[in-house]
């Protein structure tokens, strides 16, 4: 038999590593013009709807939305405050003689703050009708004391930047409640008595939906035995604030004030509102991700892919990396553009508008890109498992949208539960404020979606190596 010299490929040094696979998948992705257009359309719709929603959202009315001027809508910093400047260390003692019980969180007590500017650092020792004695600072610190109510003695002592709160039933034996550190406290600090009472907010189910019912409260409390003791001798300025001008040496006060000095859980999240347009972009990306995979089956191209790269799991992994990466970049562009174009359109309330310098806002924007990237990879994985475009899209969209749609019809508790355990939890990353209807914190929410994505992708990769395509 005639045997010929076997041929040898003239191609030198071919390689089929992961980098080559990624480059190959990128070539695939970019070379179908329709897909690029879909992506662009997704970006455009995201920005436009973000602008549209921003225009129609925000606080209705002309600014009296209850928010405190100039600070994040996450916080309320309002009430009745009688104060004077204390230079350096010292203490203030008072007896809260009485307090009106109109809310468990009505507040009456002592407050030391860096200045009277809203949002400035503060430490407050207070009595509440329902939650006992508390030492709170800077909206987020909350140290419980005894469960005693008025009448009760309170003392706030400044030493450098630390402020210590103590309480006493008789003004003789004192118990320490706690100590807080106030960054940025200068030589002079405002000290005095305050009264506040949050609006009563109730979720009420009626007419097949839940309504938030808000009623305003006026907190009242009387104080006596006020004593300011500076560590360093000084001439104390007169008391300021409060309803009527108090005498310089007054030792008893009666204050009444609405508002609250605390976190506020009912504010409109302007950033999240703007970024909801990303949901339209997400739809385009889901369709694109599913098509990117199922079109190969539809056109028989999958055999070409598997002949060129027999290690199927790696092909899918490369695909996921490329698609996720591209979606992340595109999503980042869309989210930044939405924010820049839509935030000027948000109707101005009292509260400070969201700014890029706010880490929460930045997290929401970058998180939106990550959300879209995860959704893309999740869709790809589901498509790879189901291999049918119609089934994959229906499953992904139901998992992502049904919890949100159902949320508008179900009681809040059920809706929150759904938004915690389904892939829709990923949308939490768009939040910048903590609200009464927040189901899950931003990063854990994204992590839930991440877990779904990882499981789906892992299963898809495991399976792709197993079944004959």
């Amino acid at each position, binding site marked *: *038999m005639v*045997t010929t010299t076997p041929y040898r490929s*003239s191609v030198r040094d071919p390689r089929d590593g992961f980098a080559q696979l990624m*480059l190959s998948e990128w070539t695939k992705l970019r*070379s179908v013009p329709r897909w690029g257009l879909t992506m662009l359309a997704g970006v455009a719709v995201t920005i436009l709807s973000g602008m549209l929603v921003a225009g129609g959202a925000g606080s209705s009315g002309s600014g009296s939305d209850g928010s405190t001027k100039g600070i994040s809508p996450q916080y309320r910093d309002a009430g009745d405050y009688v104060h004077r400047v204390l230079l350096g260390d010292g203490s203030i003692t008072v007896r809260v003689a009485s307090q009106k019980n109109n809310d468990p969180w009505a507040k009456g007590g002592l407050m030391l703050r860096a200045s009277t500017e809203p949002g400035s650092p503060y430490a407050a020792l207070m009595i509440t009708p329902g939650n006992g004695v508390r030492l709170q600072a800077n909206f987020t610190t909350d140290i419980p004391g005894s469960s005693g109510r008025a009448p009760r003695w309170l003392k706030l002592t400044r030493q450098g930047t630390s402020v210590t709160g103590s309480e006493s039933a008789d003004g003789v034996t004192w118990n320490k409640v706690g100590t807080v550190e106030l960054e940025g406290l200068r030589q002079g600090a405002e000290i005095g008595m305050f009264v506040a009472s949050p609006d009563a907010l109730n979720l009420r189910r009626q007419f097949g939906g839940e309504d938030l019912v808000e009623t305003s409260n006026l907190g009242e409390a009387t104080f006596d035995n006020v004593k300011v003791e500076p560590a360093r001798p000084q001439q104390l300025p007169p008391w300021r604030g409060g309803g009527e001008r108090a005498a310089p040496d007054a030792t008893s006060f009666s204050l009444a004030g609405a508002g609250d000095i605390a976190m506020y859980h009912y504010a409109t999240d302007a950033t999240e509102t703007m970024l909801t347009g990303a949901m339209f972009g997400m739809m385009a990306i889901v369709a694109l991700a599913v098509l990117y995979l199922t079109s190969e089956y539809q056109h028989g191209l999958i055999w070409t892919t*598997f002949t060129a790269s027999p290690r199927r799991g790696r092909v899918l992994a490369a695909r996921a990396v490329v698609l996720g990466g591209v979606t992340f970049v595109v999503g980042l562009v869309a989210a930044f553009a939405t924010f820049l174009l839509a935030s000027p359109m948000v109707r101005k309330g009292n509260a400070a508008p969201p700014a890029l310098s706010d880490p929460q806002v930045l997290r929401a924007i970058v998180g939106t890109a990550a959300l879209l990237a995860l959704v893309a990879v999740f869709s790809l994985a589901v498509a790879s498992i189901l291999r049918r475009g119609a089934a994959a899209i229906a499953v992904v969209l139901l998992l992502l949208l049904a919890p949100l749609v159902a949320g508008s019809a179900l009681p809040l508790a059920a809706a929150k539960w759904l938004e915690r355990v389904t892939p829709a939890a990923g949308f939490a990353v768009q939040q910048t404020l903590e609200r009464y209807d927040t189901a899950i914190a931003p990063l854990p929410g994204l992590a839930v979606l991440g877990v779904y994505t990882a499981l789906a992708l892992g299963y898809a990769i495991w399976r792709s190596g197993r079944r*004959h395509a």
Partner: protein
Amino acid sequence: MIRTPLEGHAARPSPGAGARKTVPRRDDLGPLPFVASRGMEATIEVRELRKSYGSTVAIDGLSFTVRPGQVTGFVGPNGAGKSTTMRMLLGLDTPDGGVALVGGRRYRELRAPLCQVGALLDAGAFHPGRRARDHLLWIARSNGLPAKRVDEVLELVGLTTAAGRRAGAFSLGMHQRLGIAGALLGDPPMLIFDEPVNGLDPEGIVWIRDLLRRLAGEGRAVLVSSHLMSELEGSADHLVVIGRGRLIADTSVRELLDRASDGRVAVRTAQCLEALTVLAVDGATVAAGGPDSVTVAGLPVERIVTLLSDGGVSFSGVSEHRPSLEEAYMELTRNAVEFHATAGQVRAW
């Protein structure tokens, strides 16, 4: 000159490639029915291959070898198992038993497989929205092939001018050319084409015939499937014929034609009866082939001419009967069992 593959290597040293190519270890592959030698480098081999889909047996103990330097036709009716065999060779399906090897290895173990095996399975396999050049580019990139290979193969199949057009707008013939271009990207020593002639016009058939001959002439192993033997006429050197997943014949084309022709000679004459009488001599079988022709077996041409001239029978032509490949194939499948008995490769239907 007859050269063994081993000598071929000695004559053309290429140290890098030789070192990278390792003989598969037995424990890698499970029990192999042979020890791979360096000569297996460009050989496609199927051994005792079996595959069932549910209760349907698609491939039933199939064995054959595709050698370098030849075009091997892979023939059988539709549903005989050709595509299934090719898919298993390409690692797209897993055999239930036996092995399908390319260059002595299982396809899935190949690194940068495009440089070893090129395949055309389905000419319609492309995204209609992608440009032809981009289609080849992503394939090339997956194996780290330089982009200039894309232009080279486009040139080779004559699609250079259509490179920027969307594949969806291509004609059937252009699809085939694009598919073949994809198979040639890695300049591989082994090629597997599934029905490459399907849908081609006569010009395209000639083109592909020449291409196959040229590729084999360069020393590549070429496996071409077809359900029509006539499509392989003039291109195949060797034939593997299967039916219902089993081997019917594994033979060279020359051998098959010789066997089918059987030394028969056709005589064209108006005097059929006279010719029959004159030629009915010892050792000859004579039969009327039609109104004006007679078929003779067992006599050389010169003797026939002498006999006719001596007998005074006028004739207009004497020619050796040359069966077409198609006829030989029909003959073969008709006598499948007998053929096997003589070839020693019998598997009862």
